[in-house]
């Protein structure tokens, strides 16, 4: 009995000694690896720092502005491009593409002068007398209606006009035809 017990204990001691040894060995190895890793992390962090500095240097606003002006067709965002909500942008139903008024369109390669009404002498324009500011019809701020819609509309109208002119171009319009066409379109 004792023999069995003793041999069992001896075996246990040997196994546990072996386990402890291997544990210690593994721990040491892991420790070494951990040190290596954390040293590597520190090195990487230092390298990231260099990269960050370089990125900040390369993305200096002044430099980006120059590059953008040279290579991109982008302009700074203007006030007319800002909208508070999606509803503020999509107003197609009321505005209606065909209700937009055309500002100008290229009839041909050369500018065309149309006869205009003689300007009337406006007395109010030369009136220097003093009045209350609140009666002024519109202040200096409110200069135009929304310029976005106007330019957007222009593109479509332009295309329409161009196709309109291109179609009968086979028989080559003469000068007066073109004028009458333009007046017609203008109405």
């Amino acid at each position, binding site marked *: 009995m004792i023999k069995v017990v003793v041999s069992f204990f001896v075996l246990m001691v040997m196994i546990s000694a072996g386990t402890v040894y291997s544990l210690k060995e593994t721990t040491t190895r892991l420790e070494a690896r951990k040190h290596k890793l954390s040293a590597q992390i520190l090195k990487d962090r230092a390298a990231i720092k260099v990269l960050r*500095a370089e990125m*900040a240097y390369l993305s200096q606003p002044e430099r980006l502005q120059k590059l953008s002006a040279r290579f991109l067709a982008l302009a700074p965002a203007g*006030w007319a491009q800002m909208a508070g909500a999606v509803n503020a942008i999509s107003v197609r139903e009321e505005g209606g593409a065909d209700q937009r008024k055309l500002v100008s369109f290229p009839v041909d390669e050369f500018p065309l002068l149309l006869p205009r009404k003689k300007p009337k002498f406006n007395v109010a324009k030369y009136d220097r007398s003093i009045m*209350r*500011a609140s009666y002024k019809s519109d*202040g200096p701020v409110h200069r135009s209606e929304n310029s976005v819609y106007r330019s957007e509309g222009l593109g479509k109208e332009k295309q329409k006009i161009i196709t309109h002119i291109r179609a009968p171009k086979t028989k080559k319009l003469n000068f007066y035809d073109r004028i009458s066409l333009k007046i017609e379109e203008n109405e």
Partner: protein
Amino acid sequence: MRSADLHIGGVKSEAIEVARNRLMVPAFLFVLGFGILALRLVSIGIFEDISDQVIYGQSAQTEIVRERVDILDRNGVVLATNLSAPSLAARPRLITDPEETADRIVAVLPDLNRTRVVNKLKSSRHFLYIRRNLSPTQVWNINALGYPGLILEHAEKRIYPQGRLASHVLGYVDVDNKPQAGVEKFFNDHLSNTVRSNEPLYLSMDIRVQHIVRQELALAMNKFSAKGGAGIVMDVNSGEILAMTSLPDFDGNGSLHPQSSEMKNRNILEPYEMGSGFKAFTIAMALDSGTVKLSDEFDATKPLKIGGRTIHDDHAKERILSVPEIFTYSSNIGSSLIMREVGIDHQKEYLQKFGLFDKPVIELTGLSRSLLPARWEEIQSMTVSYGHGIAVTPLHMVTGVAAMVNGGRLIPATLIRQDSGSESERYDISSDISGFAQDEDYPQVISVETSQRMRHLMRLAVEYGSGGRADVEGYRVGGKTGTAEKVVNGKYSREDKITSFIGVFPMDSPKYVVFAMLDEPVGIEETAYKATGGWVAAPVVGRIIEKIGPLLGILPKDNVKTKYQNLILVEKN
């Protein structure tokens, strides 16, 4: 063995008995020992398992490059950082062939003088430096040479990747990385703390806004051949400075001359007479003290003679003016008359409350006090009412005007990013006046009602007055121009002027104060050879707002009605 045991008896059995008893002692000791070990094992396992990790964690927190902490802008863009830049040193005794070594070193570092390097390598000293602050490529090349006599010593260099952009705010460090000015100096305790090397300092600056302000100021300076310029953009509800620029400026990476004029931050270091911009304070105190009503009228038909001096109007209307008109048309006579109503005591009290008598508050060193009149009697109080005879720094001005439009709370300027909370929403002007919570943290300088009136008056000054060129479609800009003659040899000079514009936008719910100042601009043909605040500084502020408005997410609005228009007479055309 067992069969033999049965036959043992007598003396032998006694001896075995003794041996057994003796065995009990070591057995007990073994049990005790292992018991302690087991207990310790359990206690370590349960109670002390973190200690090792703590040490590990700390060792990972300290960086290789850690002498100074990084400075970032509010969006995390690097403004200042430390990079490893080793110094090249040599042990001449370990170098066998100085001539050849010197040749190789000069090949890597071409700006070194070969003769000097040879002399150094031939010297009998133990250790000497050849060159400070090598770049990573140079370090690699020196290592590739493989000379044991050459040593790369760990050293760090402060780098400002944005160059000149925010130089006056950041300040700079000397060769030994000792801070000499700016944020670097003010926050040195944090910045030089190696334990906190992982906690970068977030400034309130926005590098994009800073660039826009600097660029526009530089353009205007060039256009009007001005000697210098200053610009500030500040959040009125939190006091955060988004941009602060002073021209000419310097590059913190280059060689610096601490005494030269480019090193001074005009925003905090030099008090200037602000001219008409000061009328905003005059009107605010008159309305707030209740001595003057908006509809009151003052006679500005003739120049005002007082104590042997005459006060003129620059844009004389030569008629009776209401209070909004005095502000809009910038009438010196009118504001002097208002000040006569308000009285010297009230004037001093309010200027004190606006913080104009103390040093400005901001996290920078080298702040300057205002220059106040030595005697403060009626004539001085009148000149002070339109910004002459009193000199304040631009930061004073910006902080004061921010308090004037944000509901009357004097919020000190700060360069540190604040946690964005519901602050701005709480003080939204579109809500009713009763929605304004009186904030205990900040002193209430003027009442909320006066603050609202001032907003409308400042908007009127841009709509109808001298600040028209600062107007930006959609952004409801308000503000006040200022033109002051400089004192040269104790006399006011006719030619040399300080022109400024203090703008606020959007006026129906102010968010930002934008200030621009130009030192000694010269009128050009485009401005009809005038160099006043309206011609020179106002367009700068206008262009700045035009660019930063969309950037900062301010929603453009049309047709915001300004009050008190009925009190203003304008020319019909």
